[in-house]
């Protein structure tokens, strides 16, 4: 399916006066946000029923751009708030774009519990490997050996693999994409939103200003090349597993049916009311 043109997307889904964004030149968050909006459009969702729930940080700005109900709460708690929103009104489509610090560090427990609970929420991890807004400190996704403002001598902690973590915790849809592979990213997000259950899409997104310039990738082009080089599609990985060589695998990594929380709770309500036919 052809992607919606930028002008149409902005006209239909962006708040008037929202652009330009406050993000730095070369930032991947705009592309990631665009992919999310295009996915919403492709699915033909009722925009009145979409709620965007963000945390705090660069990704926390996403809500200010869009013409949906938006929730901008506290750092790390996006998924906990999203759980309350979705549970209170299961008719809503709840999408939670978060940064990797937000989701994997301060919100880490909420993330794994939400994956286990399998409520129909879509988590989009905009993974730029650093805390952009506060000045480029290291995050749980910062690779070992890289330099950040709080690892000036090189980072000595290993990073999380968020997709493996999501799968282990029980998420029923898990995918990885990048802002370099945009058409694929729109498909991955759309499939995640359509999936009935907790969906995780990790979006690798460059942060040239806070991360790249400290790690020999000073320009956006350098960083996009890195995304291209450092990832491999699921299809290619299956055909040539010996050639993966430490690269991150892009595509749908898990897609299974599982008991969805709000549906289970509706059945529980029927039992509690004594409706034996429920």
């Amino acid at each position, binding site marked *: 399916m052809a992607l919606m043109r930028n002008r149409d997307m902005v006209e239909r889904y962006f708040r008037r006066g929202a652009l330009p964004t406050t993000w730095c030149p070369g930032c991947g968050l705009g592309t990631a946000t665009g992919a999310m909006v295009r996915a919403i459009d492709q699915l033909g969702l009722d*925009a*009145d*029923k979409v*709620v965007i*729930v963000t945390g*705090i940080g660069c990704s926390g700005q996403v*809500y*200010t751009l869009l*013409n*949906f*109900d*938006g*929730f*901008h*709460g*506290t750092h*790390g*708690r996006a998924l*906990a*708030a*999203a*759980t*309350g*929103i*979705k*549970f*209170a*009104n299961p*008719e*809503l489509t709840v999408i939670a774009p978060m940064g990797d610090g937000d989701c994997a560090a301060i919100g880490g*427990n*909420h993330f794994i*519990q939400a994956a286990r609970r399998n409520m129909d929420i879509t988590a989009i991890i905009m993974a730029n490997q650093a805390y952009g807004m506060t000045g480029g400190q290291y995050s749980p996704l910062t690779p070992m050996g890289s330099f950040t403002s709080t690892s000036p001598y090189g980072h000595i902690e290993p990073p999380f693999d968020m997709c493996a973590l999501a799968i282990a915790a029980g998420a029923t849809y898990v995918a990885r994409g990048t802002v370099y592979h945009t058409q694929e990213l729109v498909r991955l997000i759309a499939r995640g939103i359509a999936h009935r259950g907790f969906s995780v899409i990790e979006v690798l997104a460059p942060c040239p200003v806070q991360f790249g310039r400290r790690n020999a990738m000073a320009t956006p082009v350098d960083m996009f090349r890195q995304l291209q080089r450092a990832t491999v599609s699921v299809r290619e990985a299956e055909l040539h597993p010996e050639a993966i060589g430490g690269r991150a695998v892009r595509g749908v990594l898990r897609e299974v049916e599982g008991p969805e929380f709000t549906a289970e*709770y509706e059945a*529980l*309500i029927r*039992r*509690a*009311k004594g409706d034996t036919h429920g």
Partner: protein
Amino acid sequence: MTTMVLSGNEACVEGALRSGVRFFAGYPITPSSEIAEEMARRLPALGGKFIQMEDELASMAAVVGASLAGLKAMTATSGPGFSLMQENIGMAVMLEAPCVVVNVQRAGPSTGWATWPAQGDVMAARWGTHGDHPAIVLTPWSVKESFELTVRAVNLAERLRTPVILLSDAIIGRLREKVDLPPSVPVVDRPRPAMAPDHYRPYAGGPDGVPPMADFGTGYRWYATTTTHNERGYPVGVDAAAAEGLLKRLHSKIHDHQDEVVLTEGRWLEDSEVVVVAYGSVARSALAAVKQARSRGLKAGLLRLVTLWPFPSQLISQVAQRIRGLLVAEMNMGQMVEKVREASCGASEVWSVARFNGQYLMPEQILDKLEEVRRAWR
């Protein structure tokens, strides 16, 4: 009228359900867990939602989320959990999300004594979350009042779009008393927008300072944001006037409605030399002590604070001008006594009787203190 024997915690659930609470998110903690257990048992049959979250941070965040999606929402906890909830109590203040937080106080600090009562959280209830913010804190002295104040807490939260804290304690929460429950209770719903979505300003206060609140998913497409925001819900950027206006409105919408919010009960205030100021479970001992003191010829009265915050400074000041001494009785190292001292502003003496060893502050101890005051005045 139905007569039941209930614990304070059960009465709290009864009040919440009757005033329309249909969402509860919580995390187990002594001595509040019965509230969660009752909610888990009873909410589904009412079509309501119960969820046990991974911690109190998440519980409070879920409560705020559910409130924005349109449900009357509540949680319950005790000291250690109350500390964790502070982050998102602040969020509820800033988003103006109606909700009720019950804190069944136990002895602290930190893990403290899980099953022993205290009133050590009165300042945490006022100032626990950071930044300048208003607070409404109600504190029951009986099982019946646990019911009534929960109803009032839910209604105030909805009416003023704010979190309301019900500060119970291990004694009131687990005390069992006979209660006459009314056939119905007053039910207040949050103001909802009457205007078309195009004209909706989610943070424009209107004449009483409380903005109408659209449920998420009803086409108003608004931003609920904890960032300092203007009337439209957009970050203020460099607009200092908008930032100041927001903070002033958040406070004035509470303080302009003091007559609805600030509740006190006085006994023998007109005929006293010394007035015992007490709240929550301790007020029961204080009443007994005051009665005994009067039977011994000491002109004692009782001022019971039902609302702790906003603090009834004016009333304390008026009372202080008529009498010789105020005696503040509380189960902490003396927290509200400082507030009473400030309000009395030197117009009367201020004494303190405090107990903070997990034991109930008994009538005899308050009576002994009253006798000590009498001796000092001879």
